[in-house]
């Protein structure tokens, strides 16, 4: 991701830029409560759309292979476990550098690719940064009392600074769900804005924990507030909630992003996380992305999968594409 000096959160018109290949960062804007409160999300209709996109857009053969390769470049390869060790993280980083067997890439005629990022807890950041030197792969750190976000506010803010100092270029923060559940949008806005400021040059992904927000309408409104506060990405879940990324939630968040773009000219990234483990699912997400947001978003700058086991399934599908035979997991290097 591009580094750029932190634009202070000001009125949106001040920092409007024309669309460009590498996105301008979102400067944020003043909290617009009229806009927030006018956001609606009709669950049944959203489910109908989400339920039919897979059947409406089918990808076959070379197109499927190319899209799956693209999906790999969008993966935030993630380990967020209590038993993470430097060895485990180094292994994951090695996989991020070379996510697909070279012979398969050769057969597909596509040059070396990497995953979008490595995503770890703060303590693992230095290890990951070191392991990824020269690869261009950024390290993302989950932060702010991940996953519940209920540690002391001051410490949550400090945690961001520590991770940035340790070399994280992307910070995945968790919002205070209680602000959404109690309708305290101002508090949510203030919180995210301060976190954004603390991130400095590092990009901020705001995790909504959509599975805990109670309604799609809340997801839509929280998405808007986070973008107004300066989020570079909005992200569904920590992966620790009982319900993580879903297509209906993704549709709501993508539409919020589209709305924000239509009104400000700023493109915000989207990251569904948790529960996406099949190549077929990844294709459906990308199809939805292309349909709802358009080709501009089909880049790791604006879209990431938060996933740990997705890559393995994609590798198997790619081998099937190359050989015509169904593959096995153990034929592909583990991360």
């Amino acid at each position, binding site marked *: 991701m591009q580094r750029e000096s932190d634009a202070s959160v000001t009125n949106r018109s001040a920092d409007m830029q024309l669309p460009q290949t590498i996105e301008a960062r979102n400067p944020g804007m003043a909290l617009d409560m009229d806009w927030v409160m006018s956001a*609606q*999300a*009709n*669950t*049944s*209709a*959203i*489910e*109908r*759309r989400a339920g*039919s996109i897979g*059947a*409406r*857009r*089918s*990808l*076959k*053969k*070379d*197109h499927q*292979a*190319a*899209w799956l*390769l*693209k999906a790999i470049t969008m993966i935030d390869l993630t380990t967020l476990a209590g038993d993470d060790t430097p060895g485990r993280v180094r292994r994951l980083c090695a996989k991020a550098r070379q996510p697909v067997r070279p012979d398969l890439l050769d057969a*597909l*005629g*596509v*040059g070396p690719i990497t995953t979008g990022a490595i995503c770890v807890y703060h303590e693992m950041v230095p290890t990951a940064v070191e392991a990824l030197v020269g690869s261009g792969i950024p390290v993302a750190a989950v932060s702010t009392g991940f996953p519940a976000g209920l540690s002391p506010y001051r410490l949550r803010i400090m945690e961001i600074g520590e991770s940035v100092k340790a070399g994280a270029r992307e910070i995945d923060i968790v919002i205070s769900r209680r602000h959404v559940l109690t309708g305290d949008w101002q508090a949510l806005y203030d919180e995210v804005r301060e976190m954004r400021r603390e991130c400095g040059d590092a990009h901020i992904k705001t995790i909504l924990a959509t599975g805990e927000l*109670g*309604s*799609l*309408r809340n997801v839509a409104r929280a998405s808007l507030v986070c973008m107004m506060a300066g989020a570079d990405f909005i992200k569904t879940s920590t992966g620790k909630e009982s319900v993580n990324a879903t297509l209906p939630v993704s549709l709501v968040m993508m*539409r919020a992003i*589209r709305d924000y773009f*239509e009104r400000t000219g700023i493109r915000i990234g989207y990251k569904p996380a948790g529960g996406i483990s099949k190549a077929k699912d990844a294709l459906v997400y*990308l199809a939805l992305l*292309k*349909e709802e947001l358009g*080709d501009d978003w*089909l880049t790791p700058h604006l879209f990431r999968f938060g996933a740990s086991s997705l890559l393995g399934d994609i590798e198997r599908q790619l081998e099937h594409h190359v050989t015509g035979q169904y593959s096995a997991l153990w034929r592909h290097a583990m991360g």
Partner: protein
Amino acid sequence: MTVKDIFETMEWGPAPESDGEAQAWLDARERRFGLFIDGHWTEPGETFESRNPGNGEVLAHVTQAGADEVDAAVRAARRAQPKWAGLSGHQRARFLYALARLVQKHARLFAVLETLDNGKPIRESRDIDVPLVARHFYYHAGMAQLQDAELPDRGALGVAGQIIPWNFPLLMLAWKVAPAIAMGNTVVLKPAEYTSLTALLFAEICTEAGLPRGVVNIVTGDGQVGAAITAHEDIDKIAFTGSTEVGRIIRKATAGTGKSLTLELGGKSPYIVFDDADIDSAIEGLVDAIWFNQGQVCCAGSRLLVQEGIADRFHAKLKARMAKLRIGDPLDKSIDVGALVDPVQLDSVTRMVEAGKGAGEIYQTPCTLPNRGCYYPPTLITGLAPSDTLMQEEIFGPVLVATTFRTPAEAVEIANNTRYGLAATVWSENINLALDVAPKLAAGVVWINTTNAFDAAAGFGGVRESGFGREGGWEGLLAYTKPKGKTRPLSPITAFPAPAQAKVDELDRTAKLYIGGKQVRPDGGYSRAIWSPKGALLGHAGLANRKDARNAVEAARAATGWAKASAHLRAQVIYYIAENLAARAEEFASRINRMTGKRGGAAEVEKSVERLFTYAAWADKLDGAAKPVPLRGTALAMNEPVGVIAAFCPDEAPLLGLVSLMAPAIAMGNRVVLAASQPFPLAATDFYQLLDTSDVPPGVVNILTGFHNDLAGTLAGHLDVDAVWAQSGADISSLVEHESAGNLKRTWVNNARSRDWFGAEGEGREFLHHATEVKTTWIPWGE
């Protein structure tokens, strides 16, 4: 393109569905088809081409049936019918179940064949049409199973002639065939000329299911075949889905033949978006509303009404969505919009849009259309007014026309400003608003925050010129059953003639017409003396003419409050009429006795009081239903009044006959124009005094006296009358049905048969059915 190229561009690619199996199926039949009559295939005769509209290629040669073959099919159906109806419901259920299973087993063949023949995207035929077909047979297998227990008083109609359209060839077949055969009818079905193939495949699975021969007969061909079915004397029922124009022809052709008729016709259904709607979802809904099946859907949400404050933003977002639609090869799984059914249809759509140019602003999906085949780009025309032709006429293509409104009341007004009344869609996140608007829309189906939702359990059908009758649900069975009760030939009653020597002892009493709550003199200024059999002058009755009929309809139309009055209030008013009638029982009894020269007056009055009680009771008890549709939510079937009903009362029971028609109608919230017993009108004119004292609001009941033959044409032809009931002693059934074609109003005629007005068949659910329209309101929910 290499993988690397695609990796960069991230383009969609082709995702073709193979048509190998379907082509092989056609080849195996040498691409020539005969007719399916009496369980056998006839040799192909004179044939016509069935083409693939996606590329213009000839798929098969299909036989043009002649009158003899239609006759053979009807005879086969007639022969098979008694035995088929004689099976137990369970035995018939097993056959329907087998058909459902076979549709599922051959699902992909049906889907691909349908797409080849019709041009609809394979995703739709595969994911929507064919599953709904299977569902319809499953559902009606259940109806056959339950028939004996749940519908003991109703039996099969006999032989049904069914004529279906080309937009949903197999699905419309299922909607017609499943309820018909479930209830013990046999059928002669004609698929549309453009799209016969899936019906022919269906004929094969009838054989596989072991269906007794003659139960389902399929004859192919053009409109002449349809006309031959319509005209055939040995058919008991015609069910038609298609254009309003042809529906009107069929209405006239079947008038007076005694054939039962249901029509599912055109539409120009409104799609209303309020400013508190989930706008993105409402826009996505439009994709399912007007770009589903290339807009060739009778209930397509083709008239977009957006609240003014959000209109610009809505239209901008809609255009952005349209730009994403993919148009092309219907067999491609990733195509949103396929081919129109035929070059004729493409030409029709093109010409209509061309003719409408000048009004409004046109946006079309930027796309390259295939070189061959019948393709038309998704089109939006904004800035139209209700007075523009394109806002009124059905286009039947992927063309959405749009206007704006200011308030909910204006939305309803614009929505209802149409000759049609099939479906309507409402988008709002406000439950109060949505549920307030839905009942006000002139439509048989209303979708709230969804659109084009269908299910076998939910009734489908229209009001106004969109036709009459419902398909699906319990209400759909009424179209394929009739009461088991016996009728007998009507014996005309002539008024008693003036005696040579008149006896006039009483002070002159002037009976007038009763219109809008007032007693008015007949416009023409003519009256008729009413004599007793003994030659006593009983009084004079006015002879109502065209203008009186017009005035009565206007008064009825104006009495809008009655439909909104609570059922409890309507019940109270009807009880009050009964109370007042009971108080004057002797007077009414004596009047009846003197008019008829019989002694049944007291019994007739007593029965009339009882009948009023019956419908006062029913007023708040004809429950609607919450349909268990496959949706998180419900589809409410609500009974609404038909509107303004003109009823010709029977001759023989001057008071009871009138009460038997008036009471169910007003109990359900209708307003009525009653033509009193022709020979014995004075019970009716006495009766209006009761109405005056019973809190019946002006205009709810209007009473005309005079000659039924004179009034029938006027009232049946009146375009602001919603239904005509002809239970007259005069032979007006044919006239009423024929004249009703103007606005395709519902009719209920006696076909010169009489019923026992004193018995059970003189009241009950049959009457209530004719007094109500079932409106199905789909209400998905979920937060």
